[in-house]
């Protein structure tokens, strides 16, 4: 019995070769990771997927597979797609709130500009009237 086998080879009850595709990503001290991906994807599919990737991307791929497998085990109907739907809905709702708030700001700005313009107009009228009446009283 080889104590150095990775979690995958232990689970599959086989020898763990030096170039085992699973061993860098499924260490023996975390057996549940491989159990999850094996249950959802199968060892063969996981091996094919990892093999088709450059070696520097395999760790991320293994991690995302483990995460998706875990979501699917916890929610067999929707898996991680439930979270996608939920986020998309939240984004739509937040975009609506943002549009509404910006519209309210734009409204307040337009109201303020109208008020300023009206105020400036009144001040100008008053100034003209005062000058005219002064002119009249001066010239009789």
């Amino acid at each position, binding site marked *: 019995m080889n104590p150095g086998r990775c979690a995958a080879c232990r689970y599959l009850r086989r020898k763990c070769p030096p170039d085992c595709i699973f061993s860098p990503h499924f260490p023996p001290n975390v057996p549940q990771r491989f159990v999850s991906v094996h249950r959802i994807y199968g060892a063969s599919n996981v091996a094919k997927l990892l093999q088709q990737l450059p070696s520097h991307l395999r760790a991320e791929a293994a991690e995302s597979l483990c995460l998706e497998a875990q979501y*699917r085990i916890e929610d067999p109907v929707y898996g991680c797609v439930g979270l996608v739907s939920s986020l*998309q809905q939240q984004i739509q709702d937040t975009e609506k709130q943002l549009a509404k708030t*910006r519209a309210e*700001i734009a409204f307040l700005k337009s109201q303020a500009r109208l008020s300023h313009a009206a105020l400036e107009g009144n001040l100008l009228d008053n100034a003209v009237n005062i000058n005219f009446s002064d002119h009249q009283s001066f010239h009789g």
Partner: protein
Amino acid sequence: MRGQEPRSTSSCAACKLLKRRCTPNCIFAPYFRSDEPKKFAKVHKVFGASNVSKILIEVPEEQRQDTVNSLAYEAEARLRDPVYGCIGAIALLQRKMIQLQHDLALARACLARYAATPSSIGSTDDRVITEPFGDFPAACGGSIDTFSQNISYELNQEAHMYDFSQIPYV
């Protein structure tokens, strides 16, 4: 010819791909119609027929259509992005959500300020409504946050792969 039974052509997409006889109680037949061969092909490629069958058997019948649709969605995402699959899409959406929450908080703060002091309208603060913020604490928790930080560059390049205009049927 008289007495000869017509050959059945009602094999589902799964049995056609697996080259086997489609029985009346085939677990796949209601969900993988023969006119949608690619759907089962993708699911089979990612999950395997045997695993799909086991997943379907363990869910109630009335939820199997939803299950198949979510498996198809995940398979599609994984085939498009073999490294991150659906998790990549989730990370992108979470980042988008965080940005939106930022923008909304800024807009609400501006609105509150304008409502309180109308004289502040027209000041240079208007630009904060549209300028994106810098760092912001992640609003969404869970281990996907690690992915969000690690894959931000790659996802920005790959964002076009995810069609977020369609909400999954869920």
